[in-house]
């Protein structure tokens, strides 16, 4: 009784600090601030000057599909009015867990009761000669977009990497009138999301827009020239002007955009002594290895998985919010559970699931944010399609591929099945059935009866979702019933 009273009293003055004012951090601040029953003082600390913007829309902004007024994710003014202490352009430089306090670059100290890591990730730079030149950049934040937007007309830009981000950058730059060459290591673009057939269609479309591709080659060196020869770029340092490829070819360029992946930003976490693998290790409550410290978004790692897409991050956020709100009452339980989990991750389900929602890994559909291009991809496509051209491989026999290809319309559907369950989806062109297919994949149900019509989508398979769910449930019931006597027998 005494203890509880004391807690309530303390709540009013307790502080929750969020490191990182990107999408995850600012959204978390906003959600918590709106909740009247959540009594923490919230401090949101961002390294960037801008906070609370929708990073996903950067490609659209670059492509001029939207303008700056459409970039907002969280209304920062409203956030401040709600009492959130928002600090921007002042990165955290030190986390002192012993005293539960933070040091900012400006020297400011902030004490916290609960700390959230939402440090996101940084773009990866290839470790090649010339990678640090001033006209070699990444495509990661608003500032990058501003720089790219300021390029002189008809510049030649080399984008390295034909993943989602690289292609979005390439399209945006092309739409701004630049001459873009995309260099990609794999033989087909977007190879983690698409198979060769879909990639071919996408590439054809992008070529029509004006993008050039150099596939199956690596950039070996970025070659330098003297600064003064680049009068148009007001930089004193030397600049690269050619990309040398593994094929020996060279591509002339004014600017290089590296879009070769992202690296979770974990330096602070490491320094704070949190368990960090590729990223900050968390459990289903987004709890790190240390009490009162949580992580979410691209900087965290759950069950050996890191995150780059937004959908699971919002789920993490929901779990984290639920956890924080319920914290007072379940603090002891969860702490125990957390410790148990970190020692022995298999116990997670037993210890935690009953108490509150926990984050779980789920397949996530991918879409490319380029207007006029529809694609939808779910599943570990590069693994599922790695033996596409090898009819004798065991993988090819393990998976079955149903395909529908309309080359003229650039429509393509591929469903990858494993033992009559949907494990991979590639849609290009017409993605209207994407969510329906995705639901079938998520259901993990046998689709044996529907394989004749499946690829033609929901209109030809009315009520399939309902049907398979109930049918499989019945099957499971039968199995359970059948299994029960055996169990009994073995027990006796």
């Amino acid at each position, binding site marked *: 009784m005494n203890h509880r009273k004391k807690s309530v009293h303390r709540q009013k003055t307790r502080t929750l600090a969020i490191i990182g004012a990107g999408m995850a951090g600012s959204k978390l601040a906003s959600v918590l601030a709106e909740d009247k029953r959540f009594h923490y003082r919230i401090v949101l600390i961002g390294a960037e000057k801008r906070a609370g913007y929708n990073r996903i829309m950067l490609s659209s902004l670059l492509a001029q599909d939207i303008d700056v007024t459409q970039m907002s994710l969280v209304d920062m003014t409203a956030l401040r009015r709600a009492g959130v202490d928002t600090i921007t352009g002042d990165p955290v430089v030190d986390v002192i867990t012993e005293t539960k306090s933070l040091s900012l670059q400006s020297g400011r100290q902030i004490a916290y009761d609960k700390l959230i890591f939402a440090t996101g990730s940084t773009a990866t730079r290839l470790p090649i000669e010339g990678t640090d030149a001033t006209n070699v950049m990444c495509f990661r934040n608003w500032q990058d977009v501003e720089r790219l937007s300021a390029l002189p007309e008809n510049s030649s830009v080399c984008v390295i990497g034909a993943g989602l981000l690289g292609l979005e950058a390439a399209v945006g730059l092309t739409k701004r009138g630049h001459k873009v060459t995309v260099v990609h290591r794999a033989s087909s673009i977007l190879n983690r999301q698409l198979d060769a057939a879909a990639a071919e269609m996408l590439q054809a479309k992008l070529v029509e827009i004006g993008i050039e591709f150099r596939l199956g080659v690596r950039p070996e060196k970025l070659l330098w020239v003297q600064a003064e020869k680049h009068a148009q770029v007001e930089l004193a340092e030397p600049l690269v002007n050619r990309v040398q490829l593994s094929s020996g070819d060279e591509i002339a360029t004014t600017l290089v955009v590296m879009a070769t992946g992202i690296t979770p930003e974990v330096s602070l976490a490491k320094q704070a002594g949190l368990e960090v693998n590729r990223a900050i290790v968390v459990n289903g409550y987004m709890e790190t290895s240390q009490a009162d410290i949580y992580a979410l978004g691209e900087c965290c790692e759950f069950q050996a998985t890191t995150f780059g897409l937004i959908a699971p991050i919002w789920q993490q956020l929901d779990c984290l919010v639920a956890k924080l709100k319920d914290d007072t009452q379940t603090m002891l339980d969860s702490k125990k559970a957390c410790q148990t989990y970190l020692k022995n991750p298999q116990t997670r389900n037993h210890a935690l699931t009953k108490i509150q929602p926990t984050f779980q890994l789920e397949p996530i559909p991918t879409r490319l944010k380029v207007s006029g291009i529809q694609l939808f991809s779910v599943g570990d496509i590069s693994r599922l399609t790695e033996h596409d051209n090898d009819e004798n491989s065991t993988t090819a026999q393990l998976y*079955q591929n149903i395909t529908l290809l*309309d080359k*003229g*319309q650039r429509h393509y559907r591929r469903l990858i099945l494993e033992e009559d369950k949907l494990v991979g989806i590639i849609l290009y062109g017409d993605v209207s059935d994407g969510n329906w297919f995705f639901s079938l994949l998520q259901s993990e149900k046998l689709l044996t009866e529907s*394989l004749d019509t499946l690829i033609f*989508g929901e209109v030809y398979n009315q009520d399939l979702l309902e049907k398979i769910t109930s049918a499989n449930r019945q099957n499971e019931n039968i199995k359970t019933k059948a299994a029960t006597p055996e169990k009994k027998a073995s027990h006796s």
Partner: protein
Amino acid sequence: MDNADKAVQNTKTTCPYCGVGCGVVLPLAAEGTHLTGPVIGDKCHPANYGRLCVKGSHLADTLTPEGRLLQPIVDGQETSWQDATQTIADRIKRIVSEHGPDAFAFYLSGQILTEDYYVANKLAKGFIGTANVDTNSRLCMASAVVGYKRAFGSDTVPCNYEDLECCDLLIMVGSNAAWTHPVLYQRIQAAKIARPHMKIVVIDPRKTATCDIADLHLAIAPGSDAAIFSYLLVETARRQQLNQDYIDTHTEGFADTFSQAQVFTGNAEFVAQFCQISTLQLQQLADWWCDTEKTITFYSQGVNQSTTGVDKSNAIINCHLATGRIGREGMGPFSITGQPNAMGGREVGGLANQLAAHMDFATSGAIDLVQRFWQAPNMAQENGLKAVDLFQAIEAGKVKVVWIMSTNPMVSLPDTQQIQRALEQCGLVIVSDCQANTDTSRFADILLPATGWSEKNGTVTNSERRISRQRGLLPPAGNARHDWQAICDVAKKMGYHHAFDYQSVHEIFAEHAALSGFENKGKRDFDISYFADIQQTDYDALVPIQWPVTKERPQGTARMFSDGHFFTPTGKARFIPIAPQLPIVKANADFPYLLNTGRVRDQWHTMTRTGKAAKLLDHTSQPYLELCSQDATQLNVREGQLVRVNSELGQVVLPVKISENQRQGQVFIPIHWTSQFASAAVVSSLIPQIVDPLSGQPESKNARVSIEKIANLTYGFALTKQAIIPEEWLYWCRTPIDQGGQGNEGNKNSHSYDFAICMSETTPSALVKTHLNQTHCLSEESEKSEWIEYKNPVNGHHRIAYLHEGKLNAIWYFSPNPDLPAKNWLASLMATNNVLTPADRLALLMGRASATVDKGATICSCFNVGEKQIRSAIANGYNTATALGQQLKCGTNCGSCLPEIGNLLSQTQAKSQTETMKMQDAV
């Protein structure tokens, strides 16, 4: 008669299909060049009173220019009629002068008109001097003719259609009238509803659609019919039901006939065993027969196409004579002919064993009579060669010139291989036809383009002796001419100008009428001398009338033998002793199945016309081998899988249709599909040339065959806008794609092909490539060409669509099983020829639009109503044919589908009864 009536009158004509001879009205455009809508039934015609079957309803669809022969062709070169007829005349004259008149032969057809028949018969028998004039009617009712002649002394059908409606017992023998004579079937069905006490018995080895209205179905052993009637004769006597007065007064030969019947069919058990039916069934028939004065025995090809067809006819007639059930209302032995003008051919004498006008060569004084009438220089003196003998003589080189008119012996005569040898061997083959490409026309040295139905002009006679006009309402296609004109032109060029100088077709009819009355004086049954002076106007206005038509009977004659007088020398009808026999060909270890043949509901003969009407292929689109499920299990074949059917003579390849209508060990193949429509489906190639010794009619409904499953196939279909040459496919069947009556210019050759290929020999992609090469699509491949492809390794389905300018140009579906979806929707896409919507492009390889409901197999071709629709309507309480008709319109036009609708109704009722019983059990 005002002008409007005249206009209607003048657009009346007679259906060109079966022997019912229905009156139809053509909706002729004012300018007279085309039709403005579908053909409708003539409410005034006594054969049908406005009814039409599905084939008749779709007559307008068959009047397309596609495939028509438009110009005479001599030795491969198009030429003028002048040249062609001169060449024919010269060559016939030369051959006849070198080898004698019997080196010439006509092979005619029950499809040509009486006037065509008349001049052909006259030219051959009176001027060239040969009786080698035979016809495909030989395959159809020759046995019935001989049966009548043996019994009555004349080829006289005693009854009329009204008798079918007022009889109390109708015994249908070897007839699937529901499909082959649908309008008569409809009339019978309506009569049975109006007079429920009327009993109907069907005697047929197969359970056909006709059995739907039967009170009793005797599924007898094939060919055992005569035993039934022998038994009935004996049983009639045993039960003291003989009409002794009639036997004594009007017949002769009863005693011998009766003792012969007694010897063979002494007891019911033996007969039942012989016929493979139960004694109970046999007794039932005997009970009804003995108790029912007003009995009609209605018989058709099941009786006639037999080595003992004549005997079977007489076994039937014997029973009617013994009970005096003939010549009165609602009774008699009624042979129903298959063709629209088989009867007209008989009247003219257009058969090798007839002379003219119901006179035979053996008829005393007949040759002289006809010679004088015709002023003929070279009268034939004796019977000529009947169809099968004729083609054997051609192969043997005895007949050196054959003029084939409006028939397709390469499909219809037994032992196709022999017919081919004969035609290849023959010095001069002349083919008159309206279609350019038939299985027979490819052997022609000279091809003559004939006018087709709606163009040709003359008369036909139906199964009840009713003469009706087939009017020439549309202009001839191209340079087509009437057959009588072609014959007369040749005759004139041969030097017989005076005898063949007809200015108009009515002059031929008048001469034919005059001959029928020439020195007749009641000696001959066929007498239409009333018309001997008929003028053009009256001929054109001729209303349907039953012969004899004489000065004494200007209104015609409804019923024959009412006075008990027959046309034998004694004036008495003759009993014929019959020893029932089974078919000569029996199944053996190598060929363990007995093959039966016949028609399907919506096709006619060799499909030269019905094969053009897409709607007529909805009901049955492919040839098939029908067999029972036990046999299917034994052969390890499933529905739709391909089998090879072999006989000692030949081979066909067909998909399997499993049905409980077949008895074990008996299989059925339809007669229609030719090499123009399917790869190897000509059933005649399996049939031996075994004929009835009296009638010369082949036993086309009986052969022995072996069946082997063909494994490792890829099944499929293709819909293409360009004709494909499907040479390399193991199996294919071509059907036209419905153009919705619009006759879209670009789509004339749109066809659908069902096919199967050997997996080992080709792949779907290779096949598609071959097609495109054939149709020159690949050379046109450009940005306008698009491909859509669907592959599903789970079920092996592979589907490819080829689009041109956004429109469907060709589409292929492949599957390792014959489980392909319905093509109707795809065909409609191809026919409408619109740029496809995105939804349609997706649906293309699914086979149906997402919004469309799968209607199921087409039942009603007229309104395109499917089985699933009907079933669901029944489930919704529309549980009578009438209610279904009101709801879905099915069965309300031609009514051909009513038996099947009835079936669906009874199945559903049986099911609900079972369910009710189950529920009661549960309670």
